[in-house]
């Protein structure tokens, strides 16, 4: 009998539809893996009963001969940044601990409507602020991967979607939702040898997603391969009148459009991404990726993105500025934690609640954001950053006059050890150097696993596309996937 937890989204959906196994059998198998993996700390809460309930509904629909939906019978992990009705939604923070939404986010509802079920809520960096999943109030997520040096050093699963990357990589879920503000889908996917795509800004509704930086936040799928990402993205995306920036465009049938043939396509290689002192294995994997896409029939062209080095500093003004505004809502009045010291007035209550409820990285970003938006500094920091953002976006528009997609590494290194960068905020921020520019420009971008480095850890390759061209990104990702033949997986130790 097939080991059901070895199957991805397409195989589960097709197997359930064909009657090879039931959706309930699939949900039970993944529930067992989730329950046995507490050492990874990927889930903040498991919801095995939700997975079974959705699976029973799928099996009942099949018995009646009804259509099962794009994700019919597929249980998934839900990043704990999506509001789920009746299920605690924390953003991995103390301030939202015990918050139980009265409503369902649009993206999660779309997934349930497509026949998916929920295995649980996945751990993440607090309010999605982090690149290693070390800022969660509920503890670090541990990557299932280990270096092949025989040591047992605990490695970062990437962040902020570290619970999602760990769950998919360790076969606790065939797929999971992620959100990407400055690389939070792509970098964790690269660190754990899985695939993930951030669509064009506006494809997936932000309604019901705990807000970090609203002009950047985008949801997307994380799964084992490109096809599974295409299926799940199609289920997640769609116009939503409740999100003012939602794109009022039809959702393409990305899975049906998958095609790894790159004949007639031009692939841009940005020269500014080849930085001094670049990790040799990352550089080699990028060269390999170029050769693979050439082999797929693409023409390789060098392109220039001259403002690349300014993307990260611009991001670390814009994202904290928006965060400081968005997180003003946590005041101890309407929901979440309240800390009311004896005899305290309203202002003291706000300050005490926020001091107790936010972690160190969240406070750091709120303070930076408050500073750069404050009177006298607004133009020098915030307006300047928004102008640089215009230039970064223009760089991409000019590059896309010469190419159809851009190929780059996803991250400058493979996974680092937990604790290695957590004392140095800047070193941590620099890990998103290749991911942030596409976020600032709102472009679709994907990471696919390319191979292992000399330590036996996965490296990802990133494809960046034109606005609305998720299909082009997925197709180039598929061309890489076919040639990479990536089958490495973490050896089970948990």
């Amino acid at each position, binding site marked *: 009998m097939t080991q059901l937890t070895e199957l991805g989204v397409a195989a589960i959906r097709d197997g359930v539809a064909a009657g090879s196994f039931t959706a309930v059998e699939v949900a039970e198998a993944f529930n067992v893996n989730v329950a046995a993996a507490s050492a990874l700390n990927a889930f903040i809460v498991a919801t095995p009963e939700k997975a079974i309930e959705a699976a029973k509904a799928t099996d009942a629909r099949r018995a009646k001969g009804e259509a099962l939906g794009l994700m019919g019978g597929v249980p998934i992990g839900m990043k704990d940044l999506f509001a789920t009705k009746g299920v605690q939604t924390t953003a991995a923070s103390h301030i939202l601990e015990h918050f139980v939404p009265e409503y369902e986010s649009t993206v999660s509802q779309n997934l349930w409507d497509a026949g998916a079920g929920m295995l649980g809520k996945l751990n993440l960096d607090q309010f999605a602020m982090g690149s290693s999943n070390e800022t969660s109030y509920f503890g670090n997520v541990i990557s299932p991967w280990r270096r092949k040096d025989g040591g047992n050093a605990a490695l970062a699963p990437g962040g902020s979607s570290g619970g999602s990357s760990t769950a998919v990589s360790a076969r606790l879920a065939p797929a999971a939702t992620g959100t990407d503000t400055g690389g939070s889908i792509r970098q964790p996917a690269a660190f754990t040898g899985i695939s993930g795509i951030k669509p064009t800004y506006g494809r997936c509704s932000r309604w019901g997603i705990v807000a970090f930086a609203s002009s950047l936040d985008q949801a997307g799928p994380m799964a084992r391969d490109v096809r599974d990402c295409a299926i799940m993205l199609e289920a997640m995306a769609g116009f939503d009148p409740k999100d003012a920036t939602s794109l009022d465009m039809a959702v393409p049938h990305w899975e049906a459009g998958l095609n790894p043939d790159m004949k007639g396509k031009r692939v841009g290689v940005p020269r500014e991404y080849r930085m001094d002192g670049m990790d040799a294995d990352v550089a080699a994997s990028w060269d390999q990726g170029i050769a693979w896409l050439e082999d797929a029939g693409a023409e390789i062209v060098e392109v220039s993105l001259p403002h690349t080095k300014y993307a990260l500093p611009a991001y*670390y003004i814009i994202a904290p500025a928006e965060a400081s505004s968005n997180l003003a809502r946590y005041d101890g009045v309407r929901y979440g934690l*309240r800390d009311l010291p004896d005899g305290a007035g309203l202002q003291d*209550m706000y300050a005490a609640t926020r001091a107790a409820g936010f972690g160190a990285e969240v406070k750091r970003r709120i303070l*930076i954001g408050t500073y750069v938006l404050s009177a006298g500094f607004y133009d020098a920091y915030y307006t300047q950053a928004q102008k640089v953002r215009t230039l970064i976006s223009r760089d991409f528009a000019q590059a896309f006059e010469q190419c159809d997609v851009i190929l780059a590494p996803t991250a400058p290194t493979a996974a680092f050890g937990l604790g290695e960068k957590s004392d140095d905020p800047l070193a941590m921020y620099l890990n998103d150097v290749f991911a942030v520019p596409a976020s600032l420009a709102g472009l679709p971008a994907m990471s696919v696993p390319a191979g292992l480095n000399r330590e036996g850890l996965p490296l990802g390759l990133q494809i960046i596309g034109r606005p609305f061209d998720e299909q082009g990104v997925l197709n180039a990702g598929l061309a890489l996937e076919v040639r990479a033949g990536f089958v490495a997986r973490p050896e089970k130790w948990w």
Partner: protein
Amino acid sequence: MSVDTATVAKIAALARIKVSEAELAAMVPELNGILAWVEQLGEVDVSGVEPMTAVIPNHLRLRADVIDADPLTGGGRRDAVLANAPVAMDGFFGVPKVIE
């Protein structure tokens, strides 16, 4: 530009986050490190460049001028709105007394 302890204390007050003296002392060099790094943006020639306001061109929509057009985000949901309040009293959010 760099910040000193007094400035960080003021920012924290603006952000409504209580910070201890020890936290302040730790934050000053951290924030200065980040601010010194973002200052490189000053090198960029942005003459004639408009600040970005929308990353993907889009137009703002108006919803139909109908009461409760979307029942989920319309009115009449007091109990749901109050369900997660730390203190809900008589159909309102409860807060410490603000008038002497």
